[in-house]
């Protein structure tokens, strides 16, 4: 009798329970990103109650953002080793505890720890595993699914901001934090929804490679590591701890991923000061308070539209092969907008800027998980996303103060906006050149192996079952090269 194993899906389901996962991820984005943005509404209350100035209260927001991004790899680690459901439920409990403890705060330092560190850590445990789960369940409609999931931050901020204001008026900040803690407990519901799924692609383990006797680069690497690790395995008496962590993070050494990482560093550096300094810049060129607030609202709403429409667009068959290009186009356009900003000196000119910047900002945010999945594959997606969001943390922390220092020393916003624009354009150029270099290399290698073209057909009937997705483009190329070697040897 065959073992009653759970049936492995041939490929991502692209629907069914996947839509519940999208709903769960949407709620996770609301509870993490939107709540982080709404914390700044409490600052006026904290300032009055504790008698501190704006700079010291603003630290809370920086600590939450930083903790969420810095601990993202920890989130991926827990969800990979234990389970996604446990990771997110734990994160929800931590974040909720942080908020409840802050409602009893007696000093600003107490708030730094409970609202800053504890809540930020809780959010970190939820955010990247939830996004990775969406990638596992979708393939054909991946970008649309991500668009819907990521639009949670915009929609959440839109709805939550007036609600938080109302809560503060009714219950004062202590009561509002308590109720917000209850709301964040809904992360546990999202965690329960994240049913694990086993894909055939995950079936890549070293013993299978050994059976096939293919001289693969990856196999060689795995064998070498197994021999190094075996004495250590005995010492630690933990099965494959060394091997597992290598296997999980071996995408870090991939040249594609390193290029992506550097480009993300520059991109995060460029985009973060803009949200902080748009309103002060608008006020400095003579726009009124109401109009400046309206600019931020436009940015927020168009961000949501950009998320969903760009996600839907890049899922179309014609654009799917060019997703990488769409991503760097969006980043480049954002950079270009930034370069134009110092020239826009009145409200009618700033409105189209808000529209364009908001749209492309929503666009590239949707594509970050998709592009990462394209580079590292679905099995390492969770860990890769952890690293990618971790790389967001340092620029988010460093960039606004640097921009502020530039504004103070030069006396105008031009220098800081130009720096942001060039940073983002450099990020997209880097990706563009890396892609071109890869294409040229591949074309050269294809011309070398063109005489063994007929043998390729026979090989594709081979023993290893690979689902044919765009993610495997580069792996296909490696297979082609090594396969011709093995056939010529026989």
């Amino acid at each position, binding site marked *: *009798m*065959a073992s*009653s194993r*759970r*049936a492995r899906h041939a490929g991502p389901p692209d629907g069914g329970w996947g839509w519940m996962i999208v709903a769960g991820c949407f709620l996770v984005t609301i509870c993490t990103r939107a709540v982080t943005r709404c914390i700044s509404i409490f600052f006026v209350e904290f300032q*009055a*109650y504790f*008698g501190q100035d704006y700079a010291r209260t603003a630290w809370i927001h920086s600590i939450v953002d930083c903790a969420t991004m810095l601990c993202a790899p920890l989130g991926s680690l827990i969800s990979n080793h234990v389970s996604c459901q446990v990771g997110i439920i734990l994160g929800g409990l931590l974040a909720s505890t942080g908020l409840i403890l802050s409602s009893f705060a007696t000093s600003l330092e107490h708030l730094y720890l409970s609202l800053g560190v504890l809540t930020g850590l809780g959010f970190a445990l939820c955010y990247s595993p939830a996004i990775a789960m969406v990638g596992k369940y979708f393939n054909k409609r991946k970008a649309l699914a991500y668009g819907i999931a990521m639009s949670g931050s915009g929609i959440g901020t839109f709805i939550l901001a007036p609600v938080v204001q109302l809560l503060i*008026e*009714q*219950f*004062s900040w*202590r*009561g*509002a934090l*308590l*109720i917000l*803690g*209850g*709301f964040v*407990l*809904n992360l*546990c*519901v999202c965690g*329960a*929804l994240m*049913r694990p799924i086993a894909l055939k692609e995950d079936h890549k383990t070293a013993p299978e490679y050994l059976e096939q006797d293919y001289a693969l680069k990856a196999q060689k690497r795995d064998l070498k590591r197994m021999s190094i690790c075996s004495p250590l395995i005995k010492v630690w008496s933990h099965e494959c701890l060394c091997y597992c962590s290598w296997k999980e993070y071996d995408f870090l050494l991939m040249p594609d991923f390193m290029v992506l990482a550097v480009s993300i560093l520059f991109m995060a550096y460029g985009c973060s000061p803009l949200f902080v300094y748009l309103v002060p810049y608008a006020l400095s060129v003579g726009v009124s308070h109401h109009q400046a607030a309206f600019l931020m609202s436009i940015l927020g709403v168009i961000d949501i539209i950009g998320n969903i429409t760009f996600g839907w667009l890049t899922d179309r068959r014609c654009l799917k092969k060019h997703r990488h290009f769409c991503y760097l186009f969006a980043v480049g356009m954002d950079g270009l907008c930034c370069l134009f900003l110092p020239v826009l000196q009145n409200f009618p000119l700033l409105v189209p800027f808000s529209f364009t910047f908001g749209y492309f900002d929503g666009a590239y945010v949707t594509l970050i998980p998709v592009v990462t999945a394209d580079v590292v594959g679905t099995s390492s997606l969770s860990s890769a996303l952890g690293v990618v969001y971790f790389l967001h943390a340092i620029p988010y922390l460093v960039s606004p103060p640097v921009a502020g220092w530039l504004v103070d020393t030069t006396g105008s916003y031009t220098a800081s906006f130009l720096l942001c624009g060039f940073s983002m354009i450099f990020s997209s150029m880097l990706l563009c050149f890396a892609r071109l270099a890869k294409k040229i290399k591949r074309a050269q290698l294809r011309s070398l192996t063109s005489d063994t073209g007929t043998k390729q057909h026979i090989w594709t009937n081979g023993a290893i079952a690979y689902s044919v997705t765009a993610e495997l483009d580069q792996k296909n190329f490696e297979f082609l090269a090594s396969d011709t070697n093995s056939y010529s040897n026989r």
Partner: protein
Amino acid sequence: MEKNITLDSATIIELSCRLDNKYSHLKNLQVTWKRGNETIRHIDKTENSWSIQLKILDSSKLGSYSCILKGEEEISAIFYLQVPKIEGKEKPIVSYEGDSAVMICKSFGYTPIAWTWYKINGSEQIAINDSLLADKYVINSVSANVTHLKILKLAKEDDGVYWCEAAFELGRSKGSLKLKVLSLMVPLKPFLAIVAEVVILVTIVFLYEMYSKKKEKCAEDEKEFDQVEQLKSEESNGLENSSARNRKI
């Protein structure tokens, strides 16, 4: 037509009414400057403008002054001379029993000489003496234009209306604030409602997951059973065919 003029210290002020050119066709105009019922002597500055000079030394001279032009129609303009307004807060300040509350009053542009806080009990106002009840009330001024009243160890009796009064050379001005003291049970109820909702939803999701796992397992077992049946029947069919062939031969 009205105009507000804010004065915070003793000064000499000139109020003038000027007739606009579009009314210059009106003849036989009689101009009177009045304060309440009292008429004030005015000066004809030019053909179409009239003014009065006032020495404002104390609060008795403040109020509304009007210039009335009587002709075929009556046109008038009123000037309100007043002390600077103090900004309190329209929305009530909420706090909890045992906690503390901070109330802030601001004066814009003009610096008052002194600030006084009052608590309103029904119709009487009680001045708050922070030196007498130092562990209950703390009054401090961050700057001359702003005053803070911090009430410690709140109780239900502290609920109500408070006035902050700024004393200027020419009089006093009040701002009003409302304090609401809630018990800890008040926010706890919505919180517990949300926690209950979360627990119910999580239970439902996990139960559904177990149910669908069981269904899948049953469906898989059925499928395997069907496959084995199919194989068995194919085998038996094959045997029959071969025996049939044998018989035919």
